[in-house]
């Protein structure tokens, strides 16, 4: 960690003007600073800013302040009833201690877990564009399979963001000059191209102030299915966030997003279209799953992710549409 100036903001305006690196829970940023992957000259602590820690009703939806902790959000009774997918995705991530510190804004903006990004002895385009990508030809178990570029193969590790994407949440951003804008969460992240150092579309001085959840998908069945290398406290290998609206055996709407497979929560509109209006069946799911993984893996170590995503997708849909033997499984249903 290099010496830095510390500025404690009490209003979003101050924070934007201080033009430094924002620190919220610090659970990712401090680790990156200790190993000198991120070396801010000024840290702007936003945790004392009032009004960013509340979850309030917003039409039929919710407005979640950027400083709401992952724990508070996951346990909020409104969230658990109306958007159980979100609650489950958060609880599938990190550990209780980390979730107590981690914030909504920080979770969205956490950096990749590609091990080469965390090791300054290795070239990494995400740290320094143009330096090279050590993951290519190296160990790549955690890398992405979709949306990568020749410059970077890294995956985005957030579980919460995957659920928010399936739920079509919006992100509220305050620009340095004070104007607020709202963008769909899919538009927050950018694909690496030749600038993998830029994970998102945020500009200098932008602060995430809130996440907006639209009205609950009443009557939908929701599951966040995350597969990882141990039962808890590990980043995902693949995950599927699904909220399915059914009428009888027919899938009316499918809200889907996939985690740990791309530089951002992955979505595939064609997949949803193939499902909607169809009766749930193993043959349907197998076909759709094949379409989902039609692209090849860019790194030999992630070839397995295609198979694993395919299988996890099918298992999740079977579970949600009750094709699976339901003993031992529990499906969250939204409540009105």
């Amino acid at each position, binding site marked *: *960690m*290099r*010496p830095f100036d510390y500025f404690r903001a009490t209003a979003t305006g101050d924070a934007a003007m201080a033009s430094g690196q924002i620190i919220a829970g610090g659970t990712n940023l401090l680790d990156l600073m*200790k*190993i*000198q992957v991120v070396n801010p000259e000024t840290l702007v602590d936003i945790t004392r800013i009032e009004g960013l820690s509340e979850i309030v009703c917003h039409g039929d939806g919710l407005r979640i302040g950027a400083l709401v902790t992952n724990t508070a959000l996951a346990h909020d009774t409104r969230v658990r009833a109306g958007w159980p997918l979100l609650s489950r995705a958060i609880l599938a991530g990190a550990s209780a201690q980390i979730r107590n510190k981690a914030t909504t804004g920080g979770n969205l903006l956490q950096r990749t*877990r590609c*091990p*080469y990004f*965390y*090791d*300054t*002895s*290795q070239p990494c385009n995400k740290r320094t564009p143009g330096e090279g990508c*050590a993951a290519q*030809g*190296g*160990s790549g*178990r955690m890398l992405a399979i979709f949306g990568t570029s020749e410059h970077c193969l890294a995956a985005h590790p957030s579980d919460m963001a995957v659920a928010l994407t399936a739920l079509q949440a919006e992100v509220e951003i305050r620009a340095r000059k004070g104007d607020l804008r709202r963008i769909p969460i899919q538009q927050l992240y950018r694909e690496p191209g030749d600038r993998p150092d830029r994970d998102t579309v945020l500009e200098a001085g932008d602060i995430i102030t809130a996440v907006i959840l639209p009205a609950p998908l009443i009557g939908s069945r929701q599951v966040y*299915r995350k*597969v990882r*290398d*141990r*039962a*808890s*406290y*590990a*980043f995902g*290998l693949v995950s599927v966030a699904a909220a399915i609206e059914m009428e009888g055996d027919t899938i009316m709407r499918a809200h889907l997003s996939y985690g740990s497979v791309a530089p951002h929560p992955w979505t595939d509109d064609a997949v949803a279209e193939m499902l909607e209006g169809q009766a749930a069946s193993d043959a349907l799911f197998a076909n759709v799953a094949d379409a989902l993984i039609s692209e090849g893996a860019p790194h030999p170590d992630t070839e*397995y992710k295609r*198979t*694993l995503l395919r*299988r*996890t997708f*099918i*298992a999740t849909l079977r*579970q949600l549409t009750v094709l*699976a*033997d*339901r*003993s*031992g*499984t529990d499906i969250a249903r939204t409540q009105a």
Partner: protein
Amino acid sequence: MTDTFTMDSPQPRLLDQTGQGVVGTPMNRPDGPHKVSGRASYTADTVMDNVLHGVLVRATIARGKITGIDRDSIRSIQGVIDVITDQRMIRNPAQGMAGEAPVQPGDAVYYHGQPIALVVAETFEGARDAAQRLNIRYETEKAYVTPEGTPDREVADPETAGDFDAAWKAAEVRVDQKYTTPSHAAAAMEPHAAIADWKDGSVTLRSSLQMIRFNKKELADTLGIEPAQVRILAPFVGGGFGSKLGLGPEAAAAAIASQKLGRPVRVVMTRQTVFDCVLRRSETAQRVRIGATQDGRITAISHDDTVSNLDGEGFSEPVSQASQFLYGADGLSFTQTVARIAATPAGSVRAPGEAVGMLGFESAMDELADSLGIDPVELRLRNLPDTHPMDGREFSVRGLADCLREGAEQFGWAQRGTAGTRREGDWLIGMGMASAARSSMLVKSAARVRLTGDRAVVETDMTDIGTGTYAILAQIAAEMLGLSPDNVEVRLGNSDLPGASGSGGSFGANSAGSATFLAARKIRARLAEQLGCSEDDLTLQGGRARGGNREMALTDLARDEMQAEATIESGMTAKSHFSSGFGAHFAEVAVNEWTGEVRVRRMLGVMSMGRILNEKTARSQALGGMIWGIGAALTEDMQSDRRDGHVVTRDLANYHVPSHADVPGDMQVLFLEERDDWANPIQTKGIGELGISGAGAAVLNAIAHATGKRIYDFPALPDRVIAAMEAAL
């Protein structure tokens, strides 16, 4: 006073005759309250005036030479005092029980991650900043970093008994399989740390170390001074798992820097540095061949392996250690190949040998049982050898058969059913088992016991690395002297005290426990003399001495301090008898047929491992071992880069030890009553490592039973389980 007792013949079971009744009880650790309240001072907790902070700098090439260190690159950093390079710095930690300096590389680089300099500053932050920014120039050399790729291979002479080739050829049923296991990290909770302070020509080192008697010599040899000039303190050690057996680079660097700068120097490794340069467990490639007759008599056993290490390191993972004595055969053969690679060196990590060797060997046994159509428990029972198959020694006491039977009974093994037939929803359910074995040792060890009135002190340089040494030594002394354990103070981890075995190879309790026992026995003799009775006639209980129709309070009988020191060494019994802990592990798993996730649902370990000194700490050891078994079977996977050999999984977010959710709530341990008269005078066996030995194989065999398919490359990560299941289709 320090005459040595050699274990030449079985000794009377005195601990069964004494009347205090504390040995074996589940007594709480006396150091427990200190630990949970933060009062136990681990190395890095020690506050010292005027201390400087050092941070190790790592090499970032696989092999070559340092041609320049650009000290200007860090001059501007506040508080930086010096960049220390020194011919006496060490390349890596000493191997366990080396007693001499490890390789001192000078400006040569042997592996990516090697500590090559120490940056010293007034603050830890300053030193760490500078260590990361220091510019080093290298001349690189060609390096071979993978065991498959290196031409530098040493093939040992086979260890054999009988004629394996003939027996193999003649075998009616054969299993011939290859297995791989990755490198493992010890992953002790406390990172390696040292604080060195030179005064008047001698150095005091506080460091997180397991074997002080050896570490003292290692530091003296490293620095080129006499052992008498070295003092080492390690009263509390936050886990070792082998990684703190030998003196580490942080300790050598701290001592060198303190000598040079005339101030105490503190060096605490970051977690990444621990992964980079602390000895790892080697990856293994194993080939197991077992031949048998149709009716299930094993006739041929071979277990060959390839492991790796850095040049100049004498250690090689003893993969086939347990395979050499678990089952009998007409012909046995074991050949090891060591591949020399430029990578973080390998050394002892929890149960070196058995922890990974038994994954392969006991999986092959399971497969043999399948091929023969014989129950895996029954197959093992049918093939227990009468004597050590390799050297003919008698078994001291072997409870394996009882463990297998008792375990099968307790676990409900009879309900196991046919492989691949039980399911609950998407989960396939299976049961597996494996034998457990870990040879037991007695290592030279000394201890002193002092008695004043009804209070005693035990003194030895033995360490407690979280295992319970403070508790068991207090119990042994209390039992022998008829005291409440509360009245016994145990002083450990100080090189001024009599030299013990240290904690390693599960021999600490056997060795330091026996020395404590013998020292206390000497005091008993003196008490008997003072009371005027024979030693056999003496009863010590509740602070009172009785014998020869007399009874006296110890406060009267031992008004002046009585002191006795004893040393024990292994002797003739080890030549005539082979001592090993034995056991049987049983596991039930659920395997998700879609995602390949494995959840262990319950586990039982039945163990016969000599006298249990403390039922609670022994159980913790056994449970801990079994959890590490789950880790080896399912999660632990240290990855290195195939180009420059650097460790890729450099923190505990990427190196997966089992989390709570990986450990079933239903984890049972059962100890069978046992005394090993041939092992040592307290009739104990090593216990720490027995828990892991075979435990992972039980989990893997349960996966095979659940899915009807086998995995040969461990750990059984979801993608590997899926690949195995898809091979079935």
